[in-house]
């Protein structure tokens, strides 16, 4: 009873709270990192060094008026942010945060669920999130959001192909679709897949930027072109849902990258005796560290690069990333057969 229901529930609550808090603080981190790049201070007023800024933001979003445009499709308009947020959160169900530990006499796996199709589960769940974006833009009954949502969905679908192709190479190396199995395979191989598959890693990173609508692929919410993108008409909590979903998706992409390419909870250099001390750090700490490293690159890129244009983005996706990813699959297959 305890192991079957209570423990998973506790873990779900822990993960959800952790994700939501991380989202709040990623926003702060983003503003801070961007500020430091731009030789500014960033938020400084709420709490020491703006540390309480996220709370103030959340409070503001809570008390803001929640406006529904008169001509909007009310049901869809309300449902769209939820459709975006829920898949972003349930994707965490299969992500292994650490290795299995024994705690108070019960074994405690470091994941909520180890599904045998875990990787595909994440991809398919991400596909559902697209609906929220399309519907949000459509239901606002306004031209800029509609344009932006069409852009967004075309972009997400295009880059999903390339990203999925990179996942195929990882599956070929690990021989399993389970996220835990993939980490174990990296342990068995002695190499993180990021080093064995640098091309796939690079494509995954670029595709991940595009799938989370981050700069330089943030066309769907290009303020300068399309006002605020598909959530132009949203305000208050419903806007906050979109916001949360975007950052939660960033975390999903980072955690997946960590699991697939950076060895998940594994400590680096387990085979170098001089660095065996690194193994003492708990697995979840490594996991979080790697995830944040990845997230930091996201923020860094945003502060540095201009934005792609729509046709250039499509060209990059279809003419470069997808063929390259397919070629990578073929080469990996050949190497697997020959070597």
């Amino acid at each position, binding site marked *: 009873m305890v192991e079957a229901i209570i423990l998973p529930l506790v873990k779900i609550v822990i993960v959800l709270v952790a994700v939501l808090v991380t989202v709040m603080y990623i926003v702060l981190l983003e503003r801070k990192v961007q500020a430091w790049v731009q030789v500014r201070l960033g938020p400084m007023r709420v709490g020491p060094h703006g540390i309480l800024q996220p709370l103030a933001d959340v409070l503001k979003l809570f008390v803001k008026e929640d406006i529904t445009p008169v001509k909007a*499709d009310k*049901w*869809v308009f309300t*449902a769209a942010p939820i459709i975006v947020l829920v898949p972003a959160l349930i994707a965490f169900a299969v992500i292994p945060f650490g290795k299995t530990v024994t705690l108070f006499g019960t074994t405690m796996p470091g994941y909520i669920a180890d*599904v*045998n*199709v875990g990787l*595909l*589960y994440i*991809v*398919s*769940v*991400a*596909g*559902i999130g*697209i*609906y929220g974006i*399309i*519907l949000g833009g*459509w*239901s606002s009954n306004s031209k800029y959001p*509609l344009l932006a949502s*069409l852009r967004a*969905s075309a972009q997400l*679908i295009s880059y*999903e192909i390339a990203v999925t192709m990179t996942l195929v190479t990882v599956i070929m190396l690990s021989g399993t*679709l389970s996220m835990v199995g993939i980490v174990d395979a990296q342990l068995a191989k002695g190499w993180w897949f990021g080093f064995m598959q640098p091309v796939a890693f690079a494509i995954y990173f670029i595709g991940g930027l595009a799938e989370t609508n981050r700069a330089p692929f943030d066309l769907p919410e290009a303020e300068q072109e399309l006002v605020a993108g598909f959530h132009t008409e949203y305000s208050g909590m419903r806007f906050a849902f979109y916001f949360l979903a975007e950052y939660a998706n960033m975390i999903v992409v980072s955690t997946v990258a960590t699991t697939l390419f950076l060895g998940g909870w594994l400590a680096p250099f387990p085979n170098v005796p001089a660095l065996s001390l690194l193994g003492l750090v708990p697995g979840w700490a490594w996991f979080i560290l790697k995830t944040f490293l990845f997230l930091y690159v996201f923020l860094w890129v945003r502060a540095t690069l201009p934005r792609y244009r729509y046709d250039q983005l499509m060209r990059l996706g279809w003419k470069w990333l997808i063929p390259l990813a397919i070629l990578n699959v073929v080469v990996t297959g050949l190497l697997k057969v020959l070597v």
Partner: protein
Amino acid sequence: MVEAVAFYSLAALILGFGVLVVTAKSTVHSVLFLVADFLCVAALYVTLQAQFLAVIQVMVYAGGIVVLYLFVVMLVNLKRPPEAHSDPRRMGRLGLVMAAAVMVELVAIFALGWSKPEVTGGGGLSPNNVEQLGRLLYQDYLIPFEVASVLLLVAMIGAIVLAKREL
């Protein structure tokens, strides 16, 4: 017990959303209900030990095909409701009657003509059957699999030719 609860609730959802798909006034709502329907079907697959199919159902159906529908619904920016005009010779009732006939026929087949078929090959169904499915697809059913991919290619080219404005 758990199985029954899962089946009946999922069946109710599947049929309920199915009715909504067919009856919804707005096309976009109809598409939304279709997605919900497909998600419920995927859940049903999970209860039937077909996790891979469930994920594929969500990925391809919900995440791919229905998005296409949604795209077309948005591109087709109708100035008047799509069902405004009705052919005077249309016999809607007859359609319902025929649908009922199909239902009766199907149930009759299941109830009367059903015998356990002899199926060979496949070799059992393990709970973790992704690998098994992969082997079947790439070994026993390789030719159909390749034909299916050719079908997809043809469909892709066909769709581009049809939808392109000027060739």
